[in-house]
């Protein structure tokens, strides 16, 4: 009984940490670090190395935001979150922002009261089959058994796709992604379905990746992006325009290599405004004038982040596809910095 009271005392002590009052940006500045929610581990998107340092495609967004505010990409603490507790963690204020492979959907945006600040990866659900099956299109999968992770949007998309095309299938519901892959390798199902980026990274780990093909059909839209709570538009702007700055930097050819040189001033007013040598965009956000420089300096522009974490030279080997700039036929399109 006494020990129980001890825990109560500890609780009281930990409660005393104080209440959020001002805007999120002020809170973050006062804390001195950004608290960012990430996945517990998704290949290429959020990983921890042997020293416990987080890195990855989603993590880079957190680091860029931290750098935009503090000029230091390490002024960020990461909270690993599962797909089940990510939303409560964000809405309760446990994290300041979430960058965790989260699909932007109507109900998450409206009903759960979040603001998606943009899209950092356009994904879509695909299928993987063994080459030996002799299938070249998902429409040939009539009567196939399909391994699928339960409780995800992929399960619903799968049902929609097969119903729309009037073909039958047999789902093999499996709890976790790893287990599903093991089942697929063991031949428990003919096809495995999840987001195309997940298929690519899973295939890269197989003993014989060439024995498996990813079918061309993409059966759903999965725009993944960072998100923040409703109710603090200034903070939303900070995260949104940091992401846009990374995309804009790629469009105008600003890289971590030539950043210092370009920051001295160029003939292109758009670059000058982005890097803060012209205009007062940083001030409008409540940040320093060179906020975007710092954000780009920490991990490079969008293309550099992409290539380093999930690009074609990594074991995951994703091509840009939809995630190319609009000038290259992709969907990335940053509103002007003006």
């Amino acid at each position, binding site marked *: *009984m*006494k*020990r*129980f*009271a*001890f*825990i*109560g*005392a*500890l*609780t*009281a*002590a*930990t*409660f*005393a*940490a*104080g*209440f*959020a*009052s001002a805007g999120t940006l002020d809170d973050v500045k006062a804390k001195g670090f950004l608290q960012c929610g990430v996945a*517990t*581990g*998704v*290949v*290429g*998107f*959020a*990983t*921890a*190395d*042997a*020293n*416990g340092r987080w890195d*990855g495609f989603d993590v880079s967004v957190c680091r860029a935001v931290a750098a935009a505010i503090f000029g230091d990409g390490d002024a960020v*603490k990461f*909270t*690993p*979150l*599962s797909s*089940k*507790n990510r939303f*409560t*963690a964000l*809405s*309760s*204020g*446990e994290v300041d922002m979430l960058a965790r492979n989260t699909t932007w959907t109507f109900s998450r945006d409206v009903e759960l009261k979040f603001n998606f600040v943009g899209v950092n990866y356009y994904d879509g659900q695909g299928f993987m089959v063994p080459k030996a099956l002799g299938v070249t299109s998902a429409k040939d999968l009539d009567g196939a058994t399909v391994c699928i992770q339960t409780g995800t949007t992929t399960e619903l998309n799968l049902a929609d796709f097969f119903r729309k095309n009037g073909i039958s299938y047999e789902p093999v519901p499996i709890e976790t992604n*790893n287990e599903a*892959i*093991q089942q697929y390798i063991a031949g428990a199902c003919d096809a495995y379905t999840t987001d195309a980026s997940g298929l690519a*990274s*899973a295939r*890269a*780990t*197989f*003993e014989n990746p060439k024995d498996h093909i990813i079918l061309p059909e993409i059966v759903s839209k999965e725009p993944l992006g960072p998100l923040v709570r409703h109710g603090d538009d200034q903070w939303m702007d900070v995260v949104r325009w940091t992401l846009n700055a990374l995309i804009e930097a790629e469009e105008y050819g600003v890289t971590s290599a030539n950043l210092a040189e370009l920051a001295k001033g160029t003939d292109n007013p758009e670059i000058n405004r982005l890097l803060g040598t012209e205009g007062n965009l940083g001030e409008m956000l409540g940040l320093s004038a060179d906020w975007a420089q710092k954000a780009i300096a920490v991990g490079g522009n969008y293309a550099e982040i992409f290539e380093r974490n999930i690009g074609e030279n*990594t*074991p*995951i080997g994703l091509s840009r596809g939809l995630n190319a700039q609009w000038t290259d036929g992709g969907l990335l399109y940053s509103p002007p910095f003006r």
Partner: protein
Amino acid sequence: MKTESYVRTEMLGEKSPPATTVGLIGWVRENLFNGWFNSILSVLSALALFFVLEDILPWIWRGTWTGTSLQNCREVIQATYGEGVTAACWSVIGDRYHQLLFGFYPSELYWRPILAFVGLLVALSPVLFTSMPRKFLWFSAVYPFLCFWLLWGGSVWLPLSALAGFVLGYLAFGSVGKAAGNLAAVIAAILVPVLWWLFLAGNVASGLESFIPLELQHVESAKFGGFMLSVTIGVTGIALSLPIGILLALGRQSDLLILKSMCVGFIEFIRGVPLITLLFVASTLLNIFLPPGTQFDIILRVIIMVTLFASAYMAEVIRGGLAALPKGQYEAADSLGLDYWQAQRLIIMPQALKISIPSIVSTFIGLFKDTTLVSIIALLDPIGMSNTIRSDTDWNGIVWELYGFTAMIFFIFCFSMSRYSMYLERKLQTGHR
């Protein structure tokens, strides 16, 4: 006249028993091949064992410790054993064992959890083995505070002022007890520490801190992970659930209506709810109930929930022990003129606990293994950590090696617990059964 004796007068030397009944052969005949049915079963079992081990053992011992990634491991193995051979890639353990053990705890501070673990063994020794010097019990009493300080760091005065609360409670119990009787002493022993913790402890701690700063580098709970997290949750849950469980079991048997219904309600509610639900309450629901921005340590929340859960089960296990005692024991205690607590302490509990040892230990083992459920609420226990390790492109796709390592360490912990319980049962055996 000499009568011929037809009885042999001299002893024959002892002959060794037939070769088929002694030694290895005898044992095999006795245990494996006595009768045709058992012989068939033995052969079948041996075959089954062979087929299982035939694949597993080479996989284990052919495994490589030198690969730098899963791909590299496969190349090394193929180069050594030829095309098509699969074997374990143990290098993932070599590369990441520290994360499986300590999570993201700063590596230059590993000595702190290690010291805390050694301290745990020392603190447990007088509790577990009566042959240890009794003076060690003092260390056991102080240990929880020391452990808290070592693991989380921060000012030494926080745990010390918490400890001071217990000392104050003890002093209050003694002084008020002499002056105003038993009940008042119990009330004072609860009230004084609570008041101390609520109003004074924090100020005194920060005051002393500014006077004599003595602190370790603070490590936040988010850095905890791996077996360190499992052991922290498990050991705290185990240590707290036994006393709380005893009180609940006594409360459930009590004649006081309100106390009894509260205990029954608590036990039945907790036992009617799965642990994972309680963990979700701790991780998500509390976030919604508490005021926004409240920082209520997630590990503390989980420990509280796990302790409540284990206490309810412990209460039922101990109630079983109490029910197994013959009524004569209670009556004997009454007829000796012992009051309620004396009877419990001297007669009832020692016997009831002894009866319950196997069930208590299996509850402990279950609790310890249940700590892996925290991976579902995204705490990085060994299971959650293995997922994080797998997200590294080097080790993506490695499953069995990580789970195997985790299973082995869990086995060591759980097996030692169960061996200890057998030792304790033998030691306390007084011939009732």
